């Protein structure tokens, strides 16, 4: 990326120079995204307000653009605003609000572009420093020094904005000139537009690299700590125990209904209350039909029931029934057991013929809970395994990073020695034995570290 940027740089300069006006682009001088204005190039008839790129309605234009607001603001507080003025006033205030909202956006954009330019400059300084470390690329810094000398000579010339360096070389230059033309012509809107386009162009690579950065960052001790804590968390937790079977929901709801109903009906007349309670009792009967009873109990009950029972029940019995059903549900299991015991003892049924005694708690919900729990355990095991694997990889990566750090240092040392040797050659000073030894030691160290790093098993994105 760096190389490319420099490449563009030089091309951009050439393109700029080729133009008649011959204004050189000065890298890193003014990140400020305004085209250079030549004094006197502004046509005489134009006021500054028209030139202003900031969305703003001047107060001097008040009578023209905001007549109602101006009139009201000029009045004293004793003269109230009339209702007939509201419509016009609303529109004017809305115009102002739009304008202010746009201005806020404009300022935020400008501040952001200054910030990105600052960070760009910092990066560039760093990049220039880095390039010095690589002998293979030393051509660039040299180039730069020569060029910047040129610029100091041309320092009295107005500078061109920095953004050109990053845009397409030819279009960057043409942008700059179209900007100048726009300045000379009366079209200040066009000018603003082209500026905005260029600014947004500049931000994108930085946004992109910032977003990518965390994924390529070196592994730190903190990462390993975090993974360790995750592992501890997932291996320590035990699944919540399954609570014992509670009361059937229909029962609970019915109870709630009754208590609500009693509360509600107490202060009311009795007739209304009884109608409601019968309603609920009906509901209860329905729910008791669906109640789980053992197979033997069901057989016994069906044998005891006649085919066509007359509906002779009276409310008294019903309410008794209600109490009975409530209890019977709890007792159904014991009843089933008693029946079983009795039937076997009486010799009516053989123990083998009996259906297996099922626990009413063994319903589908319990089965589902158990299924979920086994699934959860499996997932947790898999998680633990993956976490352990990751931690192992991270630790290896740490070793590699350590070696790399050492290698970088040795690399720096090598470059230093190289520079010294070149300098010595230029001055025609013989190289001492100690210097040679140092050089050999550094190179051998370099080779050793490289071998060591290559011998490590591959991990992660830094493995290349």
């Amino acid at each position, binding site marked *: 990326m760096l190389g490319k940027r420099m490449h563009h740089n030089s091309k951009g300069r050439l393109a700029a120079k080729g133009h008649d006006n011959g204004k050189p682009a*000065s890298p*890193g*001088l*003014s*990140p*400020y995204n*305004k085209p*250079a*204005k030549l*004094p006197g190039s502004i046509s005489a008839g134009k006021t*500054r307000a028209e030139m*202003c790129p*900031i969305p*703003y309605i*001047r*107060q001097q234009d008040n009578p023209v653009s905001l007549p109602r*607001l101006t009139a*009201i*603001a000029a*009045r004293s*507080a004793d003269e*109230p*605003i009339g*209702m007939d003025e*509201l*419509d016009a*006033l*609303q*529109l004017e*205030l*809305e*115009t*102002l*609000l*739009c304008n*202010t*909202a*746009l*201005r*806020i*956006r404009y*300022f*935020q954009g*400008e*501040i952001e572009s*200054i*910030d990105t*330019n*600052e960070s760009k*400059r910092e990066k560039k300084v760093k990049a220039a420093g880095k390039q010095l470390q690589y002998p293979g690329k030393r051509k660039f810094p040299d180039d730069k020094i020569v060029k910047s000398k040129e*610029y*100091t000579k041309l*320092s009295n*010339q*107005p*500078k061109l904005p920095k953004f050109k360096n990053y845009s397409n070389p030819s279009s960057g230059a043409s942008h700059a000139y179209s900007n100048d033309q726009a300045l000379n012509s009366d079209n200040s809107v066009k000018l603003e537009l082209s500026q905005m386009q260029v600014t947004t162009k500049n931000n994108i690579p930085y946004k992109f690299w910032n977003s990518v950065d965390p994924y390529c960052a070196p592994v730190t001790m903190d990462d390993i700590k975090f993974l360790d804590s995750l592992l501890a968390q997932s291996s320590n937790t035990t699944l919540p125990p399954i609570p014992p079977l509670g009361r059937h929901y229909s029962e609970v709801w019915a109870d709630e209904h009754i208590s609500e109903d009693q509360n509600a009906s107490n202060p009311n007349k009795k007739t209304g209350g009884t109608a409601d309670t019968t309603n609920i009792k009906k509901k209860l009967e329905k729910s008791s039909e669906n109640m789980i009873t053992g197979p033997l109990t069901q057989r016994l009950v069906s044998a005891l029931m006649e085919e066509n029972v007359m509906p002779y029940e009276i409310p008294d019995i019903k309410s008794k029934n209600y109490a009975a059903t409530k209890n019977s549900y709890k007792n159904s299991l014991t009843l089933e057991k008693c029946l079983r015991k009795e039937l076997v003892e009486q010799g009516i049924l053989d123990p083998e013929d009996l259906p297996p005694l099922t626990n009413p708690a063994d319903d589908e919900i319990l089965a589902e809970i158990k299924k979920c729990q086994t699934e959860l355990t499996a997932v947790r095991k898999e998680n633990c395994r993956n976490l352990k694997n990751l931690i192992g990889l991270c630790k290896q990566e740490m070793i590699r990073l350590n070696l790399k750090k050492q290698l970088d240092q040795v690399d720096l040392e090598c470059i230093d020695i190289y520079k010294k040797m070149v300098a010595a050659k230029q001055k025609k000073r013989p190289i001492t034995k100690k210097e040679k030894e140092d050089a050999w030691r550094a190179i051998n160290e370099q080779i050793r570290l490289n071998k060591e790093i290559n011998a490590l098993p591959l991990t992660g994105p830094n493995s290349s």
Partner: protein
Amino acid sequence: MSISKLFNLNSATFLFVCITDVAAQQVQERLRSLHRLIYDIESERGRNEQCIDSILRAEKAAESSPSTEDSGSSQQQMQLKNLYKNGLTAAEQEERVLRAALSRIYEIRAIKNERRIQARHAGNKETIGCGALMKMLLSAAQTLPLHVGRVGERAPSLCGAVPADAGHIARPGDAVAALVRVSDKEENWILAEVVSWLPAQGKYEVDDIDEEQKNRHVLSKRRVVPLPLMRADPRTDEQALFPKGAVVMALYPQTTCFYRAVVNRLPSSAADPYEVLFEDFSYADGYSPPERVAQRYVIAIKEGKGRAT
């Protein structure tokens, strides 16, 4: 009670008179506050103008006296950044005052609307002629509150083209488009006003906005589309507007019926209407010449229900 006897008023009218009194007081209070806010706005604008002037001066200085040294330009940058920040705070302050002033106006409108609904309940139904009705519809569209989004803020529901939330229930007095049966075969989307919401049936009771049609309709929720409660500002909230080429329902000018139309041009400013082409088979290409319809009367089409003829 004695007063009502004295003036021989029924109790509903008496109540209405009392409400009117309270409402008038509330409106006066808002108007006074609005007046104070307008003074504030002017002083805020003065401050903003100063900020902008200093920014322009600094920009000019930065351009006309270029310094080749990095540090010099960086210093200028920092100076400019500070100026921009000042400008930003001033602009934000101005925005606050402007929003406060506008909300006073919206409150006054809400109070007036409330009073109108109460008056209607009390039986004092104002009768409006056709011309006056059209005028009223136009001004209602023009004075619909404007939504100017803050940076990064998304337009709320029922602002511009943003549809209502799934559970939205229109309030009494809200304007809606309602699909009513005109004759045995024909159904029309008409402009109507909600009278009440009947939660038990999931239906609205709506009145035709056109007074001459005296029918009150009870319609299921599907057949009632609330109109936007806010306009969207095209320059800050363009995403809350229908895009060009969108098929919409739009109120045909000088009528109170919605018909299918295609958006031809978006509003260029907050006060600007859409330009739409109505589906009309009497024209060779199937579309009417461009008509201008305010944001309030352009709504999303309801699939399968929009075939108004």
